[in-house]
């Protein structure tokens, strides 16, 4: 179990690093997909199988495909990405490291230990999440669907902006 966790975590961190430090965008995208798969693996370990599958469908199956799609549409492989000034990069990495150090030390210094409730372990299966989602969180659920619908409408509108102008 511990090994599984460590392997997945290593995969997550390495692929995440790869996303940030690879110059080639398409490799970034692929590493990010790997990263998402590793996180989905974590979800499986945490017995959130529904979320794991949804993570694959939504992130790997839809969002990253969109990224790839846009990369291909814009044909970005030829253009080398201009890089920020070196000094700025150093400062940014330094700040991020500091944030990391701060977060980790907060975890060790002040986080209260999690106590386990003496309950039987339950899994985040669909049958457990469904009633919660459609009873207690029914209104947020509907609201997100409205948000999503308006996002779709917005995307179509923004995307067809140039076309209309051309027609006129």
């Amino acid at each position: 179990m511990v090994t599984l966790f460590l392997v997945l975590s290593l995969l997550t961190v390495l692929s995440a690093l790869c996303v940030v430090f690879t110059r080639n965008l398409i490799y970034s995208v692929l590493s990010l997909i790997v990263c998402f798969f590793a996180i989905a693996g974590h979800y499986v370990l945490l017995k959130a199988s529904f979320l794991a599958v949804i993570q694959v469908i939504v992130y790997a199956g839809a969002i990253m495909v969109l990224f790839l799609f846009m990369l291909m549409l814009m044909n970005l492989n030829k253009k080398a990405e201009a890089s920020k000034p070196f000094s700025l990069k150093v400062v940014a990495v330094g700040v991020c490291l500091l944030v990391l150090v701060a977060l980790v030390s907060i975890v060790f210094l002040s986080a209260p230990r999690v106590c386990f409730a003496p309950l039987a372990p339950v899994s985040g299966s669909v049958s457990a999440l469904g009633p919660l989602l459609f009873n207690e969180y029914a209104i947020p659920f509907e609201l997100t669907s409205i948000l999503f619908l308006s996002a779709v409408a917005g995307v179509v509108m923004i995307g067809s902006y140039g076309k209309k102008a051309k027609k006129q």
Partner: protein
Amino acid sequence: MLFWIEKISLVVLVFCVTLVIAMYATLAERKFAAFFQDRIGPDRAGPFGLLQPLADGIKFFFKEEFIPANADRFLFVLGPCLSMIAACMTTAVIPWGHDIVIFGQTMALQIADLNVGVLYLAGVVSLGVYGIMIGGWASNNKYSVLSAIRASSQMISYELAMGLALIALVMHTGSLSLREIVQAQHGGHWNVFFQPLGFLLFLICSFAEANRVPFDLAECETELVGGYHTEYSSMKLGFYLFAEYINMFIASAVMSALYFGGYHFPGLYHIGLSDNSAALVGVGVFFLKIAAFMFFFIWIRWTLPRFRYDQLMRLGWKILLPLAIANMIFTGFLSLLLG
């Protein structure tokens, strides 16, 4: 330990069966094509050309390994591999037959009975597009890129209708596990009778997802010189072609399992077989159903012309998607009324 041996042997078995079926599907395709076009078809290698797939395989392996100069070598190899992997992954959740008992051990003829099996299907199907996209992109060829873009938008569009058809099915059966869905269909209660529209939508969408005619816009020779695998040769091309047949096989298996009762057939419990032999007969029946669907795939390919790209998109968004939504709402309404 026994569990792992059991599972690993099952995985190996399923993998081999899948490969063999895919191999012979190519032969079948050519034979049927010949039949439809009033030709003889391959008949030199072995009796009735039965060794033809082996000969093809050998040819693929021994052809020159060619990679275009400006192509991204890693991605160029990754593309076909991803295609194969995504195609094979689906077999994990398909229940091939009843449990059989060997040496007092009950053995499930299914690699993994996930409680989110249907969602797993949708997830893996949505991964299938990566192989095509990456292969097309890595070839550094504008036809390949165009094909990749087409393939991705086609797959995303048809996944929606497919997912909604699946959701209607799930609403009807009340389970996401494929095994339970198949079990619920015993005694002739096949889902196709309860979800005719859903089945039709699923069928059309699986044609699109498997990139088969009339939805093979990604590899249409007339416009795109062969599409995403224009630059491919030798076994990498073989992988792509193989993946297509595996996809066809998987789609047939999924449709048989979800809508046509899987390994059930009418009268299974009345012919008085022992449990193990009944299970084996069930497996045979399941493969028969799969074979029938595969024949249907081939039949369609040599019968219908290809869609135009805009027609394809219009069909997906303006006909299939609304129909799928209507089907879903209707199913929900009906199960509210009856259940």
